């Protein structure tokens, strides 16, 4: 396997959790809800995903555990922000703090344990094609799933009536409510979808990326996923580009550390975070004509019955 092939495979693997989490958050935000708890839901998803897979030996059950954990946490968030009209920013932060604690508690029993990573696709003939074979036909299931997820979300948002209604809730909840759409219920489903995706993205880390659980293993990926949604201007297509770009930055800095250019490793490790700041600045600056964010993003809605 050539170096280039290895790098591309690693980039895809590093991008996948970002893409899954960001896709979920994109749907949440398109419905007008800003859930800053992605990092918290991811890290609990990672702990539960590892736990599920370690206890049963099944990657699929692990992934389902991650999804369930993320969804449950997002339900708490939905109850608070939609049911009790609490500030979304503060609630999201609370969710992240709680998630970091919970994951440590859940994962304490699993630290130091190892599981087998998710199997990779193998189609005789196709996977053996030099250069592109492994990249196109030799990934783990999550990579394909993440792409299918983005495409379905795109189709849902732009080609279905339900998607249109969801976007309407995100742009003007008062009008959507006046037209008779159940704004809060739609938002709740959007938040749950975001939670499920964040949980799955977290579970990907111990199930497919590194075969063990360490506390804090998400290392800010949830926050980067949030930044990616901004980067994508809330469009699924650009999300894919953004996620792969960030995956590339992560992997390139790892390779650069390995090659040892005499740059301290800490500076290289800081690159993805610095890149996020720079990208946010550039993208926000380019949008001087007006924001592309859903108009009602982050605002509280209390129906007057």
């Amino acid at each position, binding site marked *: 396997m050539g170096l280039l092939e290895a790098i591309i495979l690693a980039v895809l693997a590093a991008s996948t959790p970002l893409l899954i989490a960001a896709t979920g958050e994109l749907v949440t935000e398109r419905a007008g809800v800003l859930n800053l708890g992605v990092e918290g839901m991811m890290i609990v998803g990672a702990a539960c995903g590892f736990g599920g897979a370690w206890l049963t030996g099944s990657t699929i059950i692990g992934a389902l555990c991650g999804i369930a954990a993320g969804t449950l946490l997002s339900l708490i968030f939905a109850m608070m922000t939609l049911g009790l009209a609490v500030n979304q920013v503060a609630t999201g932060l609370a969710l992240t*703090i709680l998630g970091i604690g919970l994951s440590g508690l859940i994962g304490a029993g699993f630290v130091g344990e190892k599981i087998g990573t998710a199997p990779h696709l193998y189609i005789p003939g196709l996977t053996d094609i030099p250069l592109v074979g492994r990249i196109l036909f030799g990934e783990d299931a999550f990579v394909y799933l993440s792409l299918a997820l983005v495409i379905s979300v795109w189709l849902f948002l732009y080609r279905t009536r339900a998607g249109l209604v969801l976007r309407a809730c995100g742009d003007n909840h008062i009008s959507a409510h006046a037209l008779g759409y159940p704004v809060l219920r739609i938002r709740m489903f959007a938040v749950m979808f975001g939670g499920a995706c964040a949980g799955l993205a977290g579970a990907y880390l111990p199930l497919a990326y590194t075969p063990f659980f360490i506390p804090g293993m998400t290392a800010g990926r949830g926050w980067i996923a949030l930044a990616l949604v901004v980067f994508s201007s809330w469009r699924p297509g650009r999300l894919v580009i953004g996620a792969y770009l960030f995956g590339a930055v992560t992997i390139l800095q790892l390779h650069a550390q390995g090659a040892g250019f005499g740059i301290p490793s800490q500076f290289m490790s800081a690159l993805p*975070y610095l890149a996020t700041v720079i990208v946010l600045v550039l993208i926000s600056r380019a949008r001087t004509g007006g924001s592309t964010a859903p108009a009602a993003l982050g605002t509280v809605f209390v129906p007057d019955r």
Partner: protein
Amino acid sequence: MQLVLEKRVERSNTIALVSPLIAIGLTIVTMSILFAILGKNPISALGVYFIDPLTDSYSLQELVVKATPLVMIAIGLSLCYLANVWNIGAEGQFLVGAVAGSWLAVKTHGTEAGHWVLPAMLLLGAVAGALYALIPAICKVRFGASEILTSLMLVYVADLFLDYLVRGPWRDPAGFNFPTTAEFDPVATVPLLIEGGRLHLGAIIALLVVGAAAVLLGRTIKGFEIRVVGAAPRAARFGGFNSNQLILLTFAVSGALAGLAGIIEVAGPVGHLQPGISPGYGFTAIIVAFLGRLNPIGILIAGLFLALTFIGGEQAQIAMKIPLDVTKVFQGILLFYVLACDSLILYRFRLIFPSRKVSSGAA
């Protein structure tokens, strides 16, 4: 059955005072259940958490020592949150302040430098924290980038930078390869208030900060402007308040306070620069700010309470083998309940039971 929120005509002042207490009560109930799930006796666990640290002088001093950074950071954050801007990177500003102040301590280590060193270190810490906080503020004001994400990203950067310094150029040559600087000289150390105790000058500084914030918010035009910009941005525009300038100001002040807290922590209780100087003070301070209702006196009380959870958590780990993460779970749950109870200030909760007739008529 359906829960419906009804907007109150006026915000309820009674509930504003009682809601943090309700939140703490609910958190303690929830924690008892969690302790029971973990197989620990809830009563004795709660005793170790909340009562034992208050019973001996050492723990009481430690309580104040832990509350000092929490209160200082939370005061700064409360200014931001009142102005409705979200600095969540106080942890990074804390670390940068610690690094900047430590620079002077490392440079003057083993020299004949006089008593000017400590004040200069504190100043450096505050200035560095303010400058570091101004990065997300400028990105927000100038380019419209979300200050939430940028300020948080900078936490990771600060953490890595500190790690680099203590493993690289600033490492103590006599430190057996541990990632730490040399122990600071006496002139670079925050003096103790009680000989042989833990209580240090930082506690007094924190009290002064609380007093200054109370005056700023209650007695000055600037404090009024901060509140108006947060509560009624349109009214603030008509009033001619410069909201961009206020964003920069609140970020700078909160960064300065976090940076000051950082250098006090390093030059005080820790005594040298090393990774892990903060058990998440910058994030816990967010909870302190909300639990204290963004009010300086409230923050002082809330800071002491959350400091109690840190110490209680450590003691519970030693005495009952309760994992340290329980403290974080506790803090997260507390913030949830605080926010939920705050909703009661503006809204009345009402459960609606649809009568059979109506539902069958609608079907």
